[in-house]
């Protein structure tokens, strides 16, 4: 089987590299510590909260909640996308190779049929010649 070309090697190729590229671009340097979104703002102290800070805190929490839902949906979308692309690509390849196999088997049967006929005809001609000689 001849090597397949690098470009057009299937969607799995792009799918495999995209997350790694994204990770490299978006990753934080080692040791960098951001405040975790899940961490409560308890350090400020509940007693010290004014209505303004409480409102800001509520808005921040609402943004975080929205972000969590967004990430959850994107993650589930990614799971489905990967499975769908993989299954689709497998079926497409299976259909293509089945068609090729059928075509090759047809050509082989035709060739063997022709050779068999020629062989029989050849044998028949030789037999006739032997009878004439006799």
């Amino acid at each position, binding site marked *: 089987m001849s090597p397949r070309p690098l470009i057009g090697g299937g969607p799995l190729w792009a799918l495999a*590299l995209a*997350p790694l590229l994204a990770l490299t671009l978006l990753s934080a340097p080692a040791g960098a510590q951001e405040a975790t979104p899940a961490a409560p703002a308890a350090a400020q102290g509940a007693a010290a909260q004014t209505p303004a800070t409480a409102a800001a805190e509520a808005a921040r929490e609402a943004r975080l909640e929205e972000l969590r839902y967004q990430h959850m949906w994107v993650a589930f979308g990614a799971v489905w996308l990967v499975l769908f692309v993989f299954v689709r690509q497998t079926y497409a390849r299976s259909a293509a190779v089945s068609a090729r196999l059928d075509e090759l088997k047809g050509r082989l049967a035709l060739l063997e049929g022709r050779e068999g006929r020629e062989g029989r005809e050849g044998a028949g001609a030789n037999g006739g010649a032997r009878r004439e000689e006799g």
Partner: protein
Amino acid sequence: MAAAGLFWAHWLAFVYVPMEGTMRAAQRIFYFHLPSAWLCYVGFLLCAGASLLYLLKQQSRHDALALAAAEVGLAFGVIVLTTGPLWARAAWGVWWRWEPRLTTMAVLFLIFACYWLIRSFGGDSAPVRKFGAALAVLGAPNIFFVHVAVTRWRGDHPNNIQLEPSMRVALYSTLLVFMVVFGLLVRLRYRVHLEERAAAALSRRLSRLGA
């Protein structure tokens, strides 16, 4: 059946399981992230086992199984490396950290991505098969390092999480469904590789016959 199982797993992860207190909705990613990681390991281990058999016995079907298992393992690896950062951003505030579990997992993925690239684009000759098989056999032990990364090198990645009973039900149900999907995909892919080899052999026979 597998599609119905996937819908059932989604129902468990979205509806049946209660909302986790700290990470809230983002925690639901866990029910697909962890089974995908385990099946990614299974795929790579299966690839290494079949590759070892191929190196010992030189039978084409072992090589076809190794390639099929690596491809499915990589698909689950893509799921792990996509859902992981999405979960990390919501839980830790960063997409990625160069901590031991994540780094070793990325290395493991890259080793088998190399295997797949070599096998897909390097032709299907015996030396390429043997080279790929050796790479898979030597790359698979990295799974051990991924597994022990959190305890040995004190990483940030969660490990041995205590789950509520309902969460355990959802996790193991999703794992079961993913195992069925994994088995089906490996079987499908294995058949495709065997058929491709049969077609290549038939094509060579026809060219010898001069057709």
